[in-house]
């Protein structure tokens, strides 16, 4: 294995890392410049730091976006199939597809950073965002436990910083601390689990583990190892009861960070979770059927799924802050997605990935709307959204598309995603074993309709509160972001009408 070949196969990651370094360098140099020539740039009512920071932000965002675009280009050029270092870097159509999806999600997160006024160090922020994207890509493209763990840590560490980034807001710091504590605890468990599995199988490559496990009998210690390995991912996808960080992180973090956690991090985690259970632990599937549970990972995931759906939906009912509401609904949606993995075959995996991808797109869009509203009204409680229809019909329309898609109303993407998931889950088992789980999920989505409708009611029905209506700040035409939000809404609609475009591609890319 020559280094050149490694570079060629890891060119996507390399491009993003280099972009991150460039952005970092630009962020550092322009800031220094700005402090030197403050007088020259000071004009109008904007303060000095603000204007220079805004310019840096623009340059850095542009470069970051450009770098991601180039990286997407290189991802398209990757060979169809390649395996490096016994699975540490695997290239298949599936991994390439998800690299592109992750980068596209990161791209939209970069666009969102433009609206963050409080972002003091845009260069550093974007650099970390890009490095987190590298973490996503490594997670997606690795089939080896050690590498997966390093990817998880790279992603985690970047996200801790991104959550705590807003130092003017104490909630951001609190959220960062909570995220960090939970993240490191769950990482410790995952590492413990991985080491147990390594101890039992003597190897870390997923395919080899699967071969090895097929020959040994199921032992309790192995089950403990599997459960502990899964905990780290349950944390990342915010499945109950490992979701307790999510509401704080979604609410306290800067919006692009929250959007990134809800989208990219979740998608990549589901991809790698699916690979671990379906490739690595394939012989230990077990059975999650209600009457005939057989020990394995699928009953564990089924339990997580059911709990997440119930807890997420019930608690979401009582929220009055949109970001917290999205956090709890994220818990519930993680539960729905897990159903696909519980079903546990190619189709189940592709249904889960379809669902999580459309969900990620929806949430990035929703956070885009939140960002724009927050910019205008300096808040993201329900009261900040009241009467949005009269202020910006476009945003209100997009938001209703996102909410209705999350609620699973046809013909939006969320509906088909749910239908696909549930149908796959029911077909996976001849004796309708997973019917109980599907029933729980349908019940959950029934409840969820209620709180999504509350959001719509706030947007369309409530009178805008006076403080907001008279705010002089509400005319900031953020054209680029508005376009981005509209594009995402169009994608949600398109994937609802033509789900084939993604679903068939996913299934074809499945190994």
């Amino acid at each position, binding site marked *: 294995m020559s280094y050149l070949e490694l570079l060629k196969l890891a060119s996507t990651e390399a491009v993003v890392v280099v972009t991150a370094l460039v952005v970092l360098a630009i962020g550092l140099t322009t800031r220094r410049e700005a402090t030197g020539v403050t007088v020259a740039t000071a004009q109008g009512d904007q303060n000095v730091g603000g204007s220079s920071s805004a310019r840096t932000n623009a340059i850095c965002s542009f470069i970051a976006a450009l770098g991601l675009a180039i990286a997407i280009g290189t991802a398209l050029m990757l060979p169809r199939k390649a395996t490096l270092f016994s699975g540490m870097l695997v290239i298949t159509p599936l991994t390439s597809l998800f690299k592109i999806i992750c980068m596209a999600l990161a791209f939209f997160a970069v666009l969102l950073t433009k609206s963050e006024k409080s972002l003091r160090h845009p260069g550093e922020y974007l650099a970390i965002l890009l490095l987190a994207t590298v973490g996503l890509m490594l997670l997606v493209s690795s089939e080896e436990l050690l590498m997966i763990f390093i990817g998880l840590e790279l992603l985690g560490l970047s996200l801790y910083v991104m959550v705590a980034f807003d130092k003017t807001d104490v909630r951001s710091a609190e959220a960062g601390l909570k995220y960090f504590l939970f993240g490191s605890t*769950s990482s410790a468990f995952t590492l413990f689990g991985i080491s147990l599995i390594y101890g039992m199988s003597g190897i870390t490559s997923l395919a080899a583990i699967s071969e090895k496990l097929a020959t040994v009998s199921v032992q309790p210690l192995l*089950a403990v190892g599997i459960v502990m390995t899964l905990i780290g991912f349950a944390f990342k996808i915010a499945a109950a009861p490992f979701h307790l960080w999510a509401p704080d992180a979604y609410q306290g973090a800067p919006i692009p960070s929250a959007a990134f956690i809800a989208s990219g991090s979740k998608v990549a985690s589901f991809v790698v979770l699916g690979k671990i259970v379906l490739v690595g632990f394939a012989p230990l599937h077990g059975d999650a059927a209600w009457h005939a549970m057989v020990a394995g990972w699928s009953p564990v995931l089924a339990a997580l799924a059911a709990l997440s759906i119930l807890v997420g939906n*019930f608690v979401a009912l009582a929220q009055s802050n949109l970001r917290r509401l999205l956090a709890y609904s994220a818990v519930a949606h993680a539960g729905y997605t897990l159903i696909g993995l519980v079903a546990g075959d190619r189709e189940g995996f592709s249904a889960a990935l379809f669902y999580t991808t459309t969900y990620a797109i929806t949430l990035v869009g929703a956070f885009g709307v939140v960002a724009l509203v927050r910019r205008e009204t300096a808040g993201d409680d329900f009261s900040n959204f009241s009467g949005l229809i009269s202020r910006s019909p476009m945003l209100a329309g997009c938001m209703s598309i996102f909410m209705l898609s999350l609620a699973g109303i046809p013909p939006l993407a969320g*509906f088909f995603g749910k239908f696909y998931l549930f149908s796959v889950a029911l077909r996976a088992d001849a004796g309708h074993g997973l019917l109980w789980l599907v029933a729980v999920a349908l019940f959950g989505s029934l409840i969820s309709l209620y709180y999504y*409708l509350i959001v719509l009611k706030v947007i369309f029905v409530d009178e805008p509160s006076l403080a907001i209506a008279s705010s002089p700040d509400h005319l900031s035409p953020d054209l680029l972001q508005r376009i981005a939000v509209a594009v995402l809404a169009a994608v949600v609609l398109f994937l609802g009408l033509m789900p084939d475009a993604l679903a068939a591609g996913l299934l074809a890319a499945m190994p």
Partner: protein
Amino acid sequence: MSSILPWILLLAPLCSAACITLFALRWKALSSFISIMAVLLSFICSCLVFARADISAPQFGWIDVAGALKVPFGLTQDQLSKMMLVLVSGVGAVIHIYSLGYMRDDEGKSRYFGALSLFMFAMLGIVVANNFVMLFMFWELVGFTSYVLIGHWFYRDAAAAAAKKAFITTRIGDFGFMIGILMLWMATGSIVFAEITPRMSMLTSHPTFLTVVALLIFCGAVGKSAQFPLHVWLPDAMEGPTPISALIHAATMVAAGVYMLVRVAFVIQTSQTALLVIAWIGTITAVLAALIATQQNDIKRILAYSTLSQLGYMVMAVGLASNDASMFHLFTHAFFKALLFLAAGSVIVMLHHEQNIWKMGGLSQKLPITFVTFVAGALALIGCPPFSGFFSKDAILALAYQRNVPIFAVGLFTAFLTAFYVIRLLVIVFFGKPRSEVARESRESPAVMTGPLIVLALLATLGGFAFFARRFLALPIEKEVAVFVPAVAIVALILGSGLAIVLYRNRASEPLDLQLLRHKFYFDEFYRWLIYWTQELLAGVFAFFDRWIIDAGAVSGSGRGTLGIGALLRLIQIGNLQAYLFLFGLGIVALIYFAVFH
């Protein structure tokens, strides 16, 4: 050409809705014009499609996930769907035109017509869907547009609440519907009606499975057609504009449930148990709604309960395994109920949005055209020969008499009640002396409103005659009992009407006081209590959890127990980090226990 027609009739309202929302929200006249043109185009195409036998719409693959899931997008073109197309687009067109007058001065006229067009699209979609996924999609879209339209006057709290109630209640039914679809698909491997039909024979050895599937699918109809016990949303939905009540909550959307049952009759009729349950649910709904209607004072609510009652008849017919009788009643009901609502709307508008019947009176002289048409509709509703309702209701009663005598008896009693409350309404509203200032000063509605009334009145009068109806649908075959049943029905009719006339002639207030009926059998109260009680129970559990496991001092005790379950669960989140980590650890321990020791 012939293969394009079905597509045009389906997509014209969609285009109209898109144009209005995207471009024409500011120009009210333009948007109403676009919307009406679209529905007329749909109507014309429907008629053409109906007239020609050789029309077949091409089907194309819509979703195809590598064999795992195939959903085509195709349009059914059989006798049943063609009839429904004409009916839906025809009644829709009449109501669009009527809306011009009714919504003349409304602020949100453009929004109204946009939503109306979208509704037409969704409703036509249900009619032509050739598979369950399409059906369900349009089904939900209908639910959503009805939500928007009921909540059209969203600044009224009652309207916003009613819209939400309607949406969520029907979704409860859809919950079962979806499971039913999935189970059926799982068993047969297809979701296309035409493909499932031949495969049903594979399932005959699993009668329980078939019963469960049939009843789950029926759940969808229970929600959408407002059958007992999910009927509570329909009367509240009367908060919407009256044309909406006429279109959605009388002629089309609520009938969609019945149409769906007929469409999937090949599933339902495989299980005798399911049929029996369906028949009884329909019967119960019919008699319950009729009883409630006798004590209501709001003109639109009375009509809403009569709709419930008539839907009950249709479902009863489905349960008695006669699609023809059910569709026949649906057909005539669409005309006379739309007519009654529009006539009521005419009264309401001319009385400046007064809906209490005790504030009306003596309107037969003030609004002559409205009066005459209303009488036509009312006579059709109570099944007075030779109006259309007589034929269709008679068909259902005759059927019940043959198949299930208890149901026949209840149906007959319902017919008696129907005559009673309709004549009561007629007497109070149109005869006697005006009982309020607005009633004294009212005058006839403009031509744009009375025109549709006259058209519908003609249809309601003639719609039941075999020479007319046979063109549209297969009529149920009359058996030998034909003499006995209509005779008894007419006796019930005369008794009911006579009683109402005796009781209510020249009255200024309600002589009867039946609290149970006035409060609609306390259904709303019961559901509210049920929800409250469930919340309390769960809240109690979580409060216990909260108090003993999470840091007792961190959470203030204020309001504990009175908050909903959600609020209490939220308290868990507010606790400190230690509590978080404790739960985290507990989760791990529980998972390990579950995976290893369980």
